[in-house]
């Protein structure tokens, strides 16, 4: 896809796109080694194998829930997309260790605002997979969700496009 086509596509409906919240490589959600995500129990989505230690907001919206363990965050975009960003697998059991949150439940955020820092190496050293599934909890509200899989992404790059 040429740059102009891409720009045009992004410009077409920016309210229904999500930016990558992290730096890394994207994979299909079905490749996440956890059936809760791979089988879409939480919704359709994508996953990022992180190469950084920070999660940023993928859109303008509101923090619906900052998990007190810091391992996950729920956002609702200004256009109504319900997004769960989950850092690592089974990381709820770390009970907050290696995670630092920068926003609270109820906060308004802009795309690119820093949400969470995590110590990727320390989490991996404790035996956890650090993959970051990003899922749309209200997937049923969309006829199509296009995920940019198998790409190297920087925070802010296009990650998903949703169609009503």
């Amino acid at each position, binding site marked *: 896809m040429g740059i102009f086509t891409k720009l045009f596509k992004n410009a077409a409906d920016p309210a229904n796109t999500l930016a990558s919240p992290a730096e890394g490589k994207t994979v299909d959600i079905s490749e996440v080694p956890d059936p*809760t995500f791979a089988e879409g*129990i*939480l*919704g359709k989505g994508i996953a990022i194998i992180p190469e950084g230690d920070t999660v940023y907001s993928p859109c303008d919206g509101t923090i*619906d*829930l900052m*998990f*007190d*363990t810091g391992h*996950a965050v*729920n956002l*609702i975009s200004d256009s109504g997309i*319900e997004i*769960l960003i*989950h850092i690592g697998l089974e990381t*709820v*059991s770390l009970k907050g260790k290696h995670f630092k949150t920068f926003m609270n*439940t109820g906060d308004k955020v802009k795309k690119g605002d820093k949400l969470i820092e995590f110590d990727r190496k320390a989490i991996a050293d404790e035996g956890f997979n650090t993959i970051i599934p990003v899922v749309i*909890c*209200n997937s049923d509200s969309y006829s199509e969700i296009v995920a940019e899989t198998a790409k190297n992404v920087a925070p802010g790059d296009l990650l998903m496009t949703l169609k009503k």
Partner: protein
Amino acid sequence: MKTFDYTIKDELGIHARPAGLLVKKIAGVHSSVTIEVKEKGKSADAKRLMAVMKMAVKQGDTVTVTIEGDDEDAVAPEIEQFFKENF
């Protein structure tokens, strides 16, 4: 209307995965299902994943589950069993 109380035994409470499993279990139910933690003054439609997660139900919380609709007699015992087995 059918209702039951259940006190959460799982050490980690109802976080993302259990919330997903609960919503999936209830998705096919015709009745409306609400969960409420009275001591915290919070309630949610159990068919809405984000709403269930936002409850941030913890170990020791007593959840009141209310099932109301034409299939309530059939599904209430199943839902109660699901809570016992998973939470």
